[in-house]
């Protein structure tokens, strides 16, 4: 304690100012690009804002949002992606990475093959998948027909649309796979040797050595995966639009979320509300709901991983 009090107050003030100076770019960034937009979003949520004019409407936007079935539908779709798509991506990436660590020859080629899809632009990849999975003319269903299986409707069916998107997401999981591969290769070999001497089989080694060692990487991937899923937008909108075959022409509009609203995610609903329907105040409510959902999932994940780390 004495040593702490021995620090001259003048020096401490100078040190604090210097720290603030170094932190200033970050603080300014947070205030300008996060703090201000967040406060502005809360502010606009109480206004009728058509992109040009503002009118205070109290809680009208909030009441409308909570009564809007489309909000619940899009939230359910987003939740589905978080619960099914993210784990599928993580499991596939981890499985492939694990396999790649075991392969003796040709691992470099396989790594490249599995990584390449993540370089394909989201729009191109989505359009390609919709064509591949076209129920009538796509090669996937034609191949299935050759072995006597009637393929599903994929992006044309409300039941299959989200699983089809999950296939697309799993296909493009190269980045996560590379992160997992690096983490797996970083696990100390002697831990496996010690576990093997103790009689641990492959599964026990994976569960008790690999997973605890790579858990920070898993946590990072899970959290970023959840945030990505909560903000899922482009692929769902493109798949929906291409599969529906609809275009915006005179007297004809595209209904987002085709088929049957099954691909309408919360960010899409937000976008259409704000920029298609000119209801920016209502879109701000959606944005705040989206923010709340992201925060809840992130906190849950952080808690779960902290608990798991504590146990291990």
């Amino acid at each position, binding site marked *: 304690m004495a040593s702490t009090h021995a620090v001259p107050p003048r020096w401490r003030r100078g040190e604090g100012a210097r720290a603030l100076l170094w932190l200033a770019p970050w603080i300014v960034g947070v205030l300008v690009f996060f703090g201000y937009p967040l406060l502005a979003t809360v502010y606009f949520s109480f206004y*009728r804002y*058509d*992109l*040009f*004019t503002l*009118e205070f*409407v109290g809680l*009208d*936007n909030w009441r*409308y949002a909570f*009564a809007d079935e489309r909000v619940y539908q899009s939230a359910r779709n987003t939740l589905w992606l978080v619960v099914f798509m993210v784990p599928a991506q993580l499991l596939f990436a981890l499985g492939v990475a694990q396999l790649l660590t075991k392969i003796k020859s040709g691992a470099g080629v396989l790594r490249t093959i599995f990584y390449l899809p993540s370089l394909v632009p989201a729009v191109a990849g989505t359009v390609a998948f919709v064509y591949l999975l*076209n*129920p*009538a*003319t796509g090669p996937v269903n034609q191949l299935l027909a050759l072995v006597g299986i009637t393929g599903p*409707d994929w992006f*044309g069916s409300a039941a299959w649309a989200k699983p089809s998107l999950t296939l697309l997401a799993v296909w493009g999981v190269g980045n996560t796979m590379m992160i997992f591969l690096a983490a797996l290769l970083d696990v100390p070999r002697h831990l496996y040797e010690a576990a093997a001497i103790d009689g641990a089989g492959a599964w026990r080694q994976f569960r008790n050595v690999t997973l605890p060692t790579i858990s920070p990487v898993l946590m990072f991937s899970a959290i970023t995966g959840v945030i990505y899923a909560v903000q899922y937008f482009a692929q769902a909108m493109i798949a929906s639009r291409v599969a*529906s*075959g609809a*275009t*915006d*022409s*005179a*007297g*004809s*509009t595209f*209904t*987002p979320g085709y088929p*049957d*609203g099954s691909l309408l995610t919360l960010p899409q609903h937000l976008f259409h509300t704000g*920029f*298609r*329907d*000119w*209801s920016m105040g*209502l879109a701000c409510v959606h944005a705040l709901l989206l923010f709340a959902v992201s925060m809840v999932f992130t906190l849950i994940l952080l808690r779960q991983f902290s608990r798991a780390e504590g146990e291990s």
Partner: protein
Amino acid sequence: MRFVPLAAAGLLALSLTACTAGTEAPSLGARPTTTGTGPVAAALPPATLELWHGFSTDAETTAFEEAIAGFTKKYPQIKVTAKKAVQDAQITAAIRGGKAPDVAASFTTDNVAQWCRSGAFQDLTQVIQQDGIDLSVLPEASRSYTEFEGKRCTMPLLADAYGLYYNKALMKGNEPPKTLSELTELTKKLTVRDPDGTIKVAGFIPSFQYYENSPSHLGPMVGAKWYNPDGTSAIGSDPAWKQLLTWQKELVDWYGYDNLDKFRKGLGDEWGSEHPFFEGKVAMAVDGEWRNAMIAADPEAKSMDYGTAPLPVADDKPDLYGSGFTAGTVIGVPKGAKHPQHAWELIKHLTTDTDSLVTLSNALRNVPTTKAAMESPKLAKDDKFATFLDIFAHPKTSTLPASVNSVFNQDAFSTFLIQWEKGAVKDLDAGLAGVDKRINDKLKLSGG
């Protein structure tokens, strides 16, 4: 502490810059008077106009630039820089950001109400009156989709009209139907199925999910109305919609929803050479006049023997026969345009000059909007195209009236119609009342 005065000075400078940066752009309305006797445009000072439009293909942009060249040849001191393939959202964003073009054109009429109400596009009423332009040369429907609540903030450039296309080889000698009963009868007669029930050729696809079968395009067959005079939804209260939906569902059920859905999903792209009408998979289809140009441009389809006719109409409303749906490209002067007077002169030329309209129509095969242009001997019109000119000019031809929630309303109705045609709606009246409620609730939130 010595940084504080510096920071304060910086902030002050920033504030002042912000306050003085954008001097107010000139607005349309107060028109300068000319001393000479020539046209107003000739007396305007030199300027370069920026024009944004949605045309994207080479043929479209070349035709549009030729129409613009007709103006710049007359008034060489005015130059025009055109930017192609621009969407409505880009126009709105540019206006908000203070970077608006002088002239902006849109393919859809969906944002006209918002643009007019918010002032994003300037009101043309005053200059139209000053220039003595008689708007009665435009059909009622075209006047309707270019204005909102008394503010005329856009003018119609070219129009689209919707009618019936029929493949003569598949019609088996039958004439195109004039009533919904005839359409049903002919559909059943012309439809060809495989032994297992799979549809091979559809007489007519009644699904609202098929390409151009939107409620806007099919509604005129029964004279259905979208809105009450106060802007609220008329979908639930206008019996015409119920008449259309009942007819449509009976025909869907005749095919079997699953059969029809499977057939529809296996069809080619609407904008490609695998269009089912081109490939002889559909005998009759509702489509716009622009399909004629697409057929003519397709190496395979151009040899097809087909005809066009007005839409079949409700049996109890024969006076509707000959009418249809229309909408089209709109053009206006955004708020913040640097040269609004020049911009108006260009718009006036493009939308009212007969030669310009005819040139553009001949190149793009869209319907010209003025009576003079439609009657011009220079207008290329064969029988197939003339059908759409007649539909456009018909007094009962209707449009989707401008609404601040235009896209939302169409989306709400279309979403319901998908449920309806698949048989998920048990009570049609209650379902339509639900559509009304969605539209009216949103209208209330948008300020009525």
